[in-house]
């Protein structure tokens, strides 16, 4: 393995890696079984897009509906056909959030307005909400929590993919 790989001595991290890797390989296998290999230039781009979707989908399925970001990813992937068709009419970000915002408004206590602001510069908060999926309507503390969880899974998924690329390229 590459020397730049960080040491992960904790057991839960390697167990997580195995779960992500297994799910990812499963998704890749079903992906490969569907379409025959094609050496056209546009097909190459489409294939890499499919691998990318498989990566995000497998990562979100391992977590399940427990997290806002995984729910948002699964929603986006399942409805990407519909989203692509409505791209010109409806702004893409607002469509999944419309459902989520309605749900959040019902649940939240109206008195619980957050005045404590960890984001001294609110420009950062907006950027973070755009980067983390499903984070547009969460309160700031929940946002930090979701971000930490998302980074953990995303970094592990990247590690899994790196290992796979190393493995495949040495064969």
């Amino acid at each position: 393995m590459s020397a730049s790989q960080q040491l992960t001595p904790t057991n839960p991290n390697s167990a997580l890696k195995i779960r992500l890797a297994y799910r990812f390989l499963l998704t890749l296998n079903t992906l490969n079984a569907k379409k025959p290999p094609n050496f056209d230039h546009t097909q190459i781009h489409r294939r890499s897009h499919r691998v990318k979707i498989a990566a995000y989908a497998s990562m979100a399925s391992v977590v399940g509906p427990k997290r806002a970001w995984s729910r948002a990813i699964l929603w986006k992937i399942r409805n990407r056909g519909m989203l692509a068709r409505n791209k010109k009419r409806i702004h893409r970000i607002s469509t999944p959030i419309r459902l989520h915002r309605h749900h959040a408004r019902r649940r939240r206590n109206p008195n619980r307005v957050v005045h404590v602001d960890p984001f001294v510069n609110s420009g950062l908060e907006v950027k973070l909400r755009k980067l983390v999926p499903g984070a547009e309507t969460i309160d700031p503390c929940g946002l930090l929590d979701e971000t930490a969880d998302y980074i953990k899974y995303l970094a592990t998924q990247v590690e899994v993919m790196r290992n796979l690329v190393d493995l495949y390229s040495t064969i």
Partner: protein
Amino acid sequence: MSSRRSRTRQSTSRISDDQINDLVSRLQQLLPEIRNRRSDKVSASKVLQETCSYIRSLHREVDDLSDRLSELLENTDSTQATIIRSLLSQ
């Protein structure tokens, strides 16, 4: 007016500063650069900036890796069982 404001501020202090510092330090532990730098006093805005750039770099890396992976996958067809086995045995 100011009393009303102070009253609402007290009722929302449930989300305390300690909690926020906790969350920010959790994020700090996940970021690779700040963790290696071994400095305790990193401001919250720096942590958030690093978080944003880290997430962006992770997204880019996923794109790049999926490009390479799709290329490699179309070339090697068989021996996937051995690959899975060797990956899981690490």
